[in-house]
């Protein structure tokens, strides 16, 4: 007889004194280092340019491309952008670019185009590149992908607190709603699914005009976006999300003039670190490199 599944309750969280429970409690392995070992800090590059946008709906694609190249080169200590892309991808790769089509704040098409252009220039075959969001489970390129690029705007989110890079992979599941419990805390589990595990080479969190507060059924008002003009780039999705979350939280506090916690609390970021071993969420384990425009950087 199979062992009975143990119910995880709020009290389990209270017992650990943390928002997340131990991986073993969830029946999932804690992935990561052996006891006593400490992984190196995750590098995150935040690049900003005041000229890239003047606000919601405006975008300067050429400036955006420069930001992308600058950030990636710095992230990988590469001598130039082409070398940086070569460090991440080979011409034989089959690359799925996981985008986000959410109507009010989609991944900018010009950013998708810029990435595809760089992959083509690297020698990746056009038929081995796909940009998709809701159709990824039926997309032949994604089905045979050897590499994934994860790119999406950051925003507040009704169920998960924040729409993050981690959450962007929810479309790899057949039942996204099944991850909504406890503020989508278990999103990290998706990253261990066979079609995803170990394939993500690059994460780009778009912070051009992030949404820092949501209202109404559509969870959107331009009132709660602002021209931050940034991109956050890392090979560690947890570190990138944690960095973006700090900026969103700082913006909320500044805008509302008081401590205004993101609601619900985006537990999935911390859980992705401590429970699912996907990266590092604590600022002291993140090497944050800031490039470009520094005004009102909030971090």
């Amino acid at each position, binding site marked *: 007889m199979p062992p009975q599944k143990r119910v995880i309750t*709020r009290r389990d969280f209270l*017992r650990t004194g943390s928002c997340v429970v131990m991986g073993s409690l969830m029946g999932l392995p804690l992935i990561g280092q052996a006891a006593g070992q400490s992984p190196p800090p995750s590098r995150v590059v935040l690049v900003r340019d005041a000229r890239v946008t003047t606000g919601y709906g405006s975008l300067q694609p050429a400036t955006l491309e420069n930001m992308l190249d600058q950030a990636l080169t710095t992230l990988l200590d590469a001598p130039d952008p082409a070398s940086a892309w070569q460090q991440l991808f080979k011409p034989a790769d089959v690359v799925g670019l996981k985008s986000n089509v959410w109507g009010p704040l989609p991944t900018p098409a010009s950013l998708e185009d810029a990435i595809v252009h760089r992959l083509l220039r690297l020698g990746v075959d056009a038929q081995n590149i796909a940009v998709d969001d809701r159709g990824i489970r039926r997309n032949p390129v994604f089905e045979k992908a050897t590499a994934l690029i994860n790119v999406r705007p950051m925003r507040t989110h009704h169920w998960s607190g924040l729409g993050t890079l981690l959450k962007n992979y929810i479309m790899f599941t057949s039942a996204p709603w099944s991850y909504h*419990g406890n503020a989508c805390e278990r999103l990290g589990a998706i990253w261990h699914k066979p079609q995803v595990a170990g394939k993500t080479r690059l994460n780009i969190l778009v912070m051009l005009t992030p949404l820092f507060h949501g*209202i109404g*059924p559509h969870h959107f*008002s*331009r009132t709660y976006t602002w021209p931050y003009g940034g991109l956050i780039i890392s090979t560690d999705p947890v570190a990138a999300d944690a960095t973006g979350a700090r900026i969103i939280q700082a913006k909320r506090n500044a805008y509302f003039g008081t401590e205004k916690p993101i609601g619900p609390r985006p537990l999935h970021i911390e859980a992705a670190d401590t429970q699912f071993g996907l990266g590092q969420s604590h600022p002291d384990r993140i090497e944050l490199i800031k490039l470009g425009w520094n005004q009102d950087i909030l971090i």
Partner: protein
Amino acid sequence: MQTTPLSEAPFMRVLILITVFLAFPMTLTARADSLKQLQQNLPTRVLNWTAEPADQFYDPATIFSYIDGGAEVYKAYHMQQCFSRRYANPGAPAIVLDIFDMGSSLNAFGVFTHDTDGEVLALGQDARLKPGWLSFWSDRFFVSIYTEEETPAAAQAVRALGQQVAGRIKPQGAKPRILARLPTEGLDSGSIRYLHHPVVLNYHYYLADENILDISHRTPAVLARYQRDRKEARLLLVDYPDPQSAEKALAGFLKDYLPDADSRGAALLENGRWAAAELQGQLLAVVLESDTRQLAVSLLAQVFNSK
């Protein structure tokens, strides 16, 4: 102690079930027509905003294409249909009117209580206004009016549109009967959440990764916050279809959540607060978190003395 059952007697429930079953196709049509009828009476112009030509209707199957993410809330409250109209004003942000036919006033009230932050307005049967968004409920309808960007003129138009829409719906919806079982002393009325779906409970108060209280469309429930003498507590009431279901739910809750409960059904939580549960008849009362044991026990006692 014997309590008054919240539901009808068994033979009455069977009768109601048969009636609902026979009337179901007709009811659906009537509801759809009603929202259509409401559509005919809605303003086509509000201040300098004019209705765009194509109104939209969404049903439970298509609502996800319109509302990404949050649609699950409306589904959890049994949304029947959603009507949407956009008002445009060149050079100004659009205003979006969404009217949800929730099928019953109970569900309209419930979905309204999902988010009750904001300024209280005297509109419909209860309304809230926050920057960029006005919401209210009336009869079986939940109405949302939001502007894509808050400007003084748009804010004025949102209010004006709200007044006009509210004027076209009779504010005659009944509230859930279970609300009457909430003790009034120290009740934060703005914290009341009416629900009958475990996902909604977990949104407001995460309890467990399983539905350990067997909450379903057959179990109206209410969650509320209390403050007395600067001590706080959260109370959950669940009305089960029969005492047997309630007993089963309580047994499961005690097993999974309060295995260390004392003879009064109370236990000290790991954060230093108290939880407690008590069942009488088909009504289960759970104090989820209380600053003191005394407050928890007192709330439970008042629930079952308040009939």
